[in-house]
């Protein structure tokens, strides 16, 4: 670098003395305060490193900074504040019956928002993110309910679950007509044909009708309309939990499968249970 000033012949401007292949750079000095601002930013970073978490140490640790700031602690504080903010709502949910809550537009709105999140976290793994269910896991969006579709009935199912070890749980068991030897193969086939006929598919089988009246009508009703108190499904529509082909129905009569749902009252609070109930009811099928 040249130590001496050199002035460009054409422009009358000084050069920086830097030269590349005969091309020289004109010197347009930067304002000095600009340089100081640059120094200030360096200083700022030093102060920052001292005060705040900055450098990783190994793979799992980091310098903590002297003022003890933590983004996680901030988040916890925010969450705490939000919980406090929601406390009023929580109280209203706890104090009122589900049906009352569902009638109040504000609470309904709140329950829908809260219920959506709760449902996605807890219920969606089995019932699907939109509640459409899957084979063996009931669809909650349609108007067909095994254990009843009113707010109170849904609330009971959510709180105590189905066929678990809680005494209040929904409980029912259809006998395994085939494996227990109650019905013969051809009898089961005849019943299946009758059931299909109830759902509007195929010719009736008089023998099946007879057996149905004897064996099945106690729970499913004479017309096959089902009975929510006993968890006996309506057989007259085309909504089938374990599949609707003749084969599926025969299999279910021979050796029924039974779904299990956990109880939620210990995992979710009272307000949350009511919110999920209202959300499920509002998915579309609620009665």
């Amino acid at each position, binding site marked *: 670098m040249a130590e001496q000033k050199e*002035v460009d012949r054409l422009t009358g401007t000084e050069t920086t003395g830097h030269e590349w292949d005969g091309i020289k750079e004109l010197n347009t000095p*930067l304002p000095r305060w600009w340089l100081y601002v640059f120094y200030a930013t360096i200083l700022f970073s030093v102060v920052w490193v001292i005060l705040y978490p900055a450098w990783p140490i190994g793979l799992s640790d980091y310098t903590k900074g002297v003022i003890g700031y933590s983004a996680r602690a901030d988040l916890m504080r925010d969450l705490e504040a939000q919980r406090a903010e929601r406390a009023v709502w929580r109280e209203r949910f706890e104090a009122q019956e589900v049906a009352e809550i569902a009638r109040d537009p504000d609470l309904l709105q709140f329950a829908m928002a809260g219920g959506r999140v709760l449902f996605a976290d807890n219920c969606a793994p089995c019932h699907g993110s939109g509640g*459409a269910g899957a084979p063996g896991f009931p669809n909650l969006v349609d108007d067909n309910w095994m254990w009843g579709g009113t707010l109170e009935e849904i609330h009971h199912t959510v709180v105590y679950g189905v066929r678990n070890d809680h005494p209040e749980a929904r409980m029912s068991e259809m006998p395994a007509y085939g494996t227990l030897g109650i019905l013969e193969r051809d009898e089961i086939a005849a019943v299946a044909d009758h059931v299909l006929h109830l759902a509007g598919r195929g010719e009736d089988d008089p023998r099946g009708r007879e057996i149905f009246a004897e064996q099945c009508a106690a729970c499913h009703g004479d017309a096959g309309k089902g009975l929510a108190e006993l968890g006996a499904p309506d057989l007259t529509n085309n909504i089938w939990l374990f599949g609707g082909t003749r084969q599926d129905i025969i299999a279910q009569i021979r050796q029924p499968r039974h779904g299990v749902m956990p109880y939620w009252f210990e995992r979710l609070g009272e307000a949350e249970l009511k919110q999920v109930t209202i959300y499920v009811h509002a998915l*579309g099928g609620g009665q």
Partner: protein
Amino acid sequence: MTMETQRSASHPATPPSAASSGPAPADPGTAATPAPPAASPEKIKFFADREKIYPRNIHGTWRQIKWAVLGVLLALYYIGPWIRWDRGPGAPDQALLIDMPGRRAYFFTIEIWPQEVYYLTGLLIIAAIGLFLVTAWFGRVWCGFTCPQTVWTDLFMWVERKIEGDRNARLRLDKAPLSFGKAGRKIGKHAAWLLIALATGGAWIMYFNDAPTVVRAFFTGQASTAVYGFTALFTATTYLLAGWAREQVCIYMCPWPRFQSAMFDEDSLIVTYEDWRGEPRGSARKGQSFEGRGDCVDCGLCWQVCPTGVDIRKGQQMACIGCALCIDACNNVMDRFGRPRNLITYDSIANQNARAEGRPVRMRLVRPRTLIYIAVLAIAATVMAYTLVTRDRVDVAVQPDRSPLFVQLSDGSIRNAYTFKILNMERNNKSYTLTTAGITGAMLTVIGYQAEPATSTVLPARPDDVATFRVLVTAPPESVPLATHDLWFVLTDQATGEVVEHRTVFASSGN
């Protein structure tokens, strides 16, 4: 590098100021100057110290105009948030308000919702094109008269003059050794600056909060950290930019001078020195003859009054913000010597060339460039005004459920679910009739509002609010044979009969 060469070539360096070190647009008609002698044994400097500028006070027409503009603009700024505007109960009564937590912006009768932010875009486009147009006509009037940087710097300089005296007094004061008197004046000046800066930062906050409330809260220590923080921030920036940085902002920080030369042409008005009659310059005594010499008496008053330290006699340059104070300065001198005024003048380059050659001058306001700006401006303003006047004050947002797309009910009918939002942007309670079109036999159910399926239902919406509903539409299987169908939601305002239609899809099994 070429740019640099061209620009500097027209202005050989003899800077009385830091300001002329910035590149200046080329001055047509000036040839490149021969090379000055090279190589003096000084060290090369890569950083330039700021030369402090001590602008001298001046009286005159342009100064008067500048004061008037300054007064009006500051008044608008400080009074703005205090203007009240009744919007009825439950709504803020501040004419100009940006309500961040409430997600609303208010401008007198106009209320903007977040999804209407494109009006802000429109406003910015209009402002930009307006600025281009004004610049093409009148040069740097924005910089010289209305830019906040200029206005507040001018105000701060006025305070400085009141406390420390005019140019010569300030030069003397800065050279003098530290004394009680000097310390007192300096402290007084900075205290006054800080007070103005605080008022500036404080007023800014009022545009985002209810002014009387936030002022009361501010002085009783009840205001939020954000309020104090932003007030402190804007106080600091005002103090630093108007008190300390001043012309450095225009020369080194602001992008506008860098590209505004693109709006200039030879018919744009600029502050310029009539070198054809000023040169050769030289000092003069009163009553002496000006025969055979130029009118410039080389008194230096023009660069002494300049807030950016520019010597305009060297031609147009970037550091000149076009404040026209040097015109006032020179006119005072010309009057004293009985010479024609406006040796430094507000004129176009074309006219200057014409005057120099004794040709008639003319003001060309209508030029292709200005016509284009006007056209764009008119289009933008018309579109803005039209959409603003005809904009809906009720809007609908519909989101079909994706999981599941549709549900088959026990009677075989098909149902779709929608999240249905009504944006009621008016200040009163509304009630709407919702019906559908496009699918025969479609029935509506609304959670919490319409339990029994019906062909039409009534939905309420609160003032200035978004009402959200879960709407279920059930259709008989024979009217929805395809995988998707068009479905229209028709929302009718029961009071005004205003209708909003919204098209969405209805999914089915497709068999």
